[in-house]
């Protein structure tokens, strides 16, 4: 059988053409408010581009960039007890903690200094996963471009603190679960 050379090439071009026309077709449908053809999930069809910075890709709750330290919105207390587990599990060893000392010279259960080298951190989330006090969490903030390397590459305690309310806002499910577990623990204790 003789097959004309280039037939499949033309078929391929038809597929490209279909993609091209579909982007318009779905755009018109979207304008008219017809269902289907979104940009996310299994039904995504048509133009696929997220128009950053005007809009942003939706971020799932577990999304992680750099770690942050949580303080209680109500009392202002830092949750961290400086137990050092985060420093112990940190793979590139970018967490540095100085334990606070009282006037009597005895250590207190809070950090005097807490430093994270942002340029060494690999955003792995192990510190947040193993923190027994829900004190260190992974932030969602990814827009951190800077024209200077310093001082943003070494984050100190003040840079790292965010409120428990912020944590509950970006991690609604996890924060609710944690609050429940803490309440349970407290009721057992009394």
């Amino acid at each position, binding site marked *: 059988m003789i097959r004309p050379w280039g037939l499949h090439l033309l078929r391929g071009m038809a597929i490209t053409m279909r993609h091209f026309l579909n982007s318009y077709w779905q755009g018109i449908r979207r304008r008219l408010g017809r269902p289907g053809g979104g940009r996310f999930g299994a039904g995504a069809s048509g133009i696929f581009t997220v128009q950053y910075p005007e809009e942003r890709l939706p971020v*799932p709750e577990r999304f992680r960039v750099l770690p942050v330290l949580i303080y209680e919105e109500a009392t202002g207390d830092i949750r961290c007890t400086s137990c050092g587990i985060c420093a112990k599990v940190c793979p590139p060893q970018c967490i540095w903690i100085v334990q606070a000392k009282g006037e009597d010279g005895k250590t207190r259960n809070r950090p005097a200094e807490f430093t994270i080298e942002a340029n060494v951190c690999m955003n792995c989330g192990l510190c947040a996963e193993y923190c027994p006090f829900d004190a260190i969490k992974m932030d969602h903030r990814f827009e951190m471009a800077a024209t200077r390397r310093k001082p943003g590459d070494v984050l100190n305690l003040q840079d790292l603190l965010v409120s428990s309310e912020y944590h509950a806002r970006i991690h609604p499910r996890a924060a609710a679960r944690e609050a429940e577990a803490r309440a349970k623990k407290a009721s057992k204790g009394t």
Partner: protein
Amino acid sequence: MVRWQDLLGQVESVASWGRKSSLWPLQFGLACCAIEMICAAASRFDIARFGAELFRPSPRQADLMIVSGTVTKKMIPMIVRLFSQMAEPRYVLSMGACANGGGPFKEGYNVVSGVDEFLPVDVYVRGCPPTPQALLEGLIALQRKIEDESYLGAWRLASRPEIPVPALGPDLVDRRQAGGIRAAMEKREPQRLASPRELPQARPARKAAELSSAEGAAVEAGAKLSGRVPADRVQASGASLIIGRDAWGRAARALRDECGYDYLANLTAADYADAVEVVYHLARTAAPGPALTVRVRTERDRAEVPSVVPVWPGANMQEREVWDLFGVRFAGHPNLKRILMWEGFAGHPLRKDWLEPYYEEPRKMFSSRWKEGTYRAAEDRNRWGRNVVYPDGFDGSVPEAAPSASPAAASEGDGEGRRRLLVSLGPQHPSTHGVFQMRALLEGERVVALEPVMGYLHRNHEKIGERNSWIMNFPYTDRLDYLTSMANGLAYAVSVERLAGLKVPERAEYIRVIMAELTRIVNHLWAIGFLLNDLGSWFTPALYAIEERELILDLFEMASGSRMMCNYMRFSGVSADLPEDFLPQCRRLVAERLPRAIDSLDAYLTKSEIVGNRLRGVGVLSGASAIGHSASGPVLRGSGVAYDLRKAEPYSIYDRFQFDVVTFPGGDAYDRYRVRMGEMRQSLRILDQALKQIPDGPVIEKNQYLLRVPEGEIYGRFENPKGELGFYLVSDGTASAYRYHVRAPSFVNLSALEEMCRGHLVADVVAILGSIDIVLGETDR
């Protein structure tokens, strides 16, 4: 009255606007971040909206250098050279933690702690890796900077001093520091400002026993060998054989020819107090079953063992790696020189007593981090403010590198008056899939010989891995083959679980298989898309493939928190249960969308005449030589060898699923492509079954960060999308691995590259490399 200044201001703002809206980035990628950079250029994020889509392969046409990933010492001379070839006004965007300041690999001996040690960086983009959106934000920040720049000021920058290209001596030598180095070395000033508190301790090698105490496959192999080599040269150690160095050559032949061990799965070494032990893992492609371990020991100070390249050609590059990192000579090796580091580098880094410049302690956590953890930059602990140390007697001068290609071969003809030409492709080249170099000797346009050159992304994974606690290695394995992080994590988790005897809950097993097979689809989509790129169909097929990939990455991000660096597997389970909407979305994707997408890609490409003409009969590798070269994955199965570790040595719960091993007999680039197409469909079959059967229940036995693994060792083999991923782990019963070796499929598959390329055109070399499908993070580790 129009003032001259106002007029100039108008001109300036128009010019700045023009410049910021038409940035032409240099087309080169270094590591994991480069993948996100490519995604930023693909349809979802579309860097073209900012006028920056014209990635130029030549620095002379580019005005923006995106340093996307880990800058290694071996690569920095090329980066500086590329930068100096760019015309002013030029900008540098440093992308990701590694380029900004060394990143997670900072402590490694081959890593530069920040590209700004050499280049003037305009914008730093944070993250590891930064998402494509973060890169776009960096680009916007750069545009803002350009907008504020004075036009005349920018041109004045042209008088910026030239940056001298750093040299590769015993360590990286910044020529601007050469005088200081010489003075300090003469005065014998200490290079490390504080001497380390504790040095690593080497432990003795495992004891040998009588052959009669051998277990498993070692019994049979030992019995066959006893007739071939003197009986006292073969001993047993559990399920492995210890073979005397002088008898190893004969024994290797006997193992291959008489015991059927035709496949050298892995070759590496371990450094002990009393010996360096070279370890071989042998398998039979005809008979499934676990690999046989063979050990050959040699003295530490005059380490030498016979080369097995004549028996298993696939040993070639792995022996070079052992020479490079352990300093073991292989007698009879055809081309024994360093492979990951450069010639002239001081020392063999994986020896236990070799300390890198930023060395702190033998094991993590470092004691300086906690309780009294006042931050101190690693740079400040070093005399040079850099990640470098020099051996005694070094005078700070490095001669200009001689032309590294062998000029003799190039200038001479073949005796018949035909001139030969040596061409270097890479390490900055759009076709090499990263920082990989090929030195091709050409006769006309035909390849006569070809040598792969690597190490430009050698990030010291193994040295760091031997300091990490067991759990710390998970996020590092994500960065091996950064396209398949889920599968890497699975392989590492299963290896350690076997060694520690941990159980995995049912639901977690299913989640793992789902993730691993989604990863296979992700990888093959990418491989096929970029194979077509290599053929010259600039980006369209890749765009379609990346679109589907993005949808799978959304699932990964939903479950694990990161698109690429998932870090989702844990010992005895996975880090967290699937979020509620994961399974419905995944089912829809697997049942409806992906089959259609793969069919459409198939219809688009498989029968296309151009694809056929470019790939059929190109890069043919026979089944026998694929086995000999230790090829694995689609490269092996594309040569007609039905060897798939999911069947041959099943791990996790792969034995429960119905799927076929896809093979094609041709051994050419086209068949490797077809294997990948077929494997995606098989993955969908497995996914379909797994998504139907997945039970409820816990997803982890016990999520603990401190794991103690009993003394022992293991070589775990896994069918990763690119081929056999192996973890050779030796535990001494402490919280970290004594020896941590990664058998990377991309690395070993390259051993067959020369054979595939010989006789083909230069343009075919690009297609052949694309059909092998390598990732440099894994090749160089």
